[in-house]
């Protein structure tokens, strides 16, 4: 974990309301799939923006973000050459065990981006199938990345790109066709994760989900971004997560 003074190399729109920003960190950072960075956008914004790392390449790191509030509005206007503080890598990240050969990625909305980092880290070592749901054709992005997976199924809520279904339904259809993974890694809206939890419980599949929550410090000190665990305890999404075994957390 380090607070990098990062220089924007590129900051461009990649889909409807979605941008990708690439920073030069000045040195190579060791980032695990599913970890995130806490980006200081400055000005009157006292909180940083916690955003999942999408990919890293030598000294460069790329984050994809949805325009949601004033902070991301401001970030989107920043041009190449702008320097920002980026505290990273944060959180535990996804980890695929040695004996887990077949990996299923289930993602929806902005939750698809941390899954790209999984594909980048494990793509050569594992047989990865990606089931990605988008709102509509305009929201489709990251296709060139997901196409590197052994299997890539893209679906949309309205059927304007791929079949009309959600990512969990796409995963379930393939599961029924006999494509059973050793582990499922997921990130997306809570209703999607809930549906997935029901499915993996029924199918007795090992599954890890990356959660999102409003954060304060991003490093585990302020206990703002907690989630409830099934054992009654509370866990910090930023430090104990963001990736949890789906059986351990209440969604």
């Amino acid at each position, binding site marked *: 974990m380090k607070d990098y003074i990062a220089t924007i190399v590129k900051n461009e729109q990649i889909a409807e309301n979605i941008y990708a920003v690439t920073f030069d960190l000045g040195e190579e950072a060791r980032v695990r799939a599913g970890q995130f960075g806490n980006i*200081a956008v400055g000005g009157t914004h006292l909180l940083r923006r916690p955003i999942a790392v999408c990919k890293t390449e030598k000294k460069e790191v790329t984050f994809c973000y949805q325009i949601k509030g004033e902070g991301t509005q401001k970030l989107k206007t920043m041009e190449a050459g702008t320097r920002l503080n980026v*505290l990273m890598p944060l959180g535990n990240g996804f980890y695929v065990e040695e004996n887990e050969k077949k990996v299923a990625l289930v993602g929806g909305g902005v939750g698809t981006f941390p899954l790209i980092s999984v594909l980048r880290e494990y793509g050569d070592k594992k047989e990865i199938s990606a089931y990605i749901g988008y709102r509509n054709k305009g929201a489709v992005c990251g296709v060139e990345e997901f196409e590197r997976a052994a299997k890539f199924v893209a679906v949309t809520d309205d059927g304007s790109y791929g079949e009309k279904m959600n990512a969990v339904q796409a995963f379930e259809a393939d599961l029924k066709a006999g494509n059973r993974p050793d582990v499922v890694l997921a990130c997306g809206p809570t209703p999607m994760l809930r549906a997935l939890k029901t499915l993996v419980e029924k199918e007795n599949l090992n599954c890890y989900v990356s959660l999102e929550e*409003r954060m*304060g410090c991003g490093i585990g000190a302020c*206990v703002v*971004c907690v*989630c409830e665990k099934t054992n009654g305890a509370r866990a910090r999404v930023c430090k104990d997560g963001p990736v949890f075994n789906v059986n351990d957390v209440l969604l």
Partner: protein
Amino acid sequence: MANLSVNICGVDLKNPVIAASGTFGFGREFNELYDIGQLGGISTKGLTMELRAGNPVPRIAESRGVILNAVGLQNPGVEHFIKCDLDWLKSTGTCVIANVAGKTLDDYFAICERLDGKVDMIELNISCPNVKSGGMAFGIKPQSVEEVTRVSKSALKKTPLIVKLSPNVESIAANAKAAENGGADCVSLINTLTGMAIDIERRKPIIANNTGGVSGAGVKPIAVRMVYEACQAVKIPVIGMGGITCAEDAIEFLMAGAVAVQVGTANFTDPFAMPKIIKGLNDWCDKHGIKNVRELTGTLQLNER
């Protein structure tokens, strides 16, 4: 190099910069970024006798220049702190201030008694705006401020007592005086101001608790004014806080009469905020020919009106 050390109620601090309760946990996470032993002190996350789960999420929101939080005193309980964090925290070399809260006067007595002699100072949280019972209830009226202070002080044989004051009151001077009358060795202020931020699409408050405590750069002028008023009202030392982001901010509080300051929200914006403030204090003193940071305290000269 200026001398930055200060002494509060007989306790020596390397410098007057203390981590504010609730923004710094028990120090372990920030120690991964820098040696927290360089800090003047750390006020721990608010401790209660029993473990507390805290409020539902979301617990934080942002508004221009400030943040709002309603964590609701989530903490592992005082025994867990004593067993798992205290020795390590002391080993870092920083001054350990245990921030404590309770629902009843008995709770305050019990937790003060439990920590007496174990930590460098105890900071009484009588002003948490985010829990339904206790906390804030004690912090509003001067009579109850005095009472909770007196009860807590009676449990302390060795450790000096700081009473942290709420700004959500009729008269900060009266409450500071009440704490002093109750036997406080020091007061700290301001805790957060109660506020609300609304998600207009959902027509609901962003924070699950509906209201939250407002902190950050935007509250600083209010905090400076209140610290000044408290300093005028009492003879015991005052620790100032509220929106401190840089050394210059800290100096305002010192000039208003504070002997030390606490830094909270700035740690979220810049995790290195406190080491930078300590360095900035030294640089400012050097530049102004000040040999001892203590010389700054209470040097404010009001404009003639």
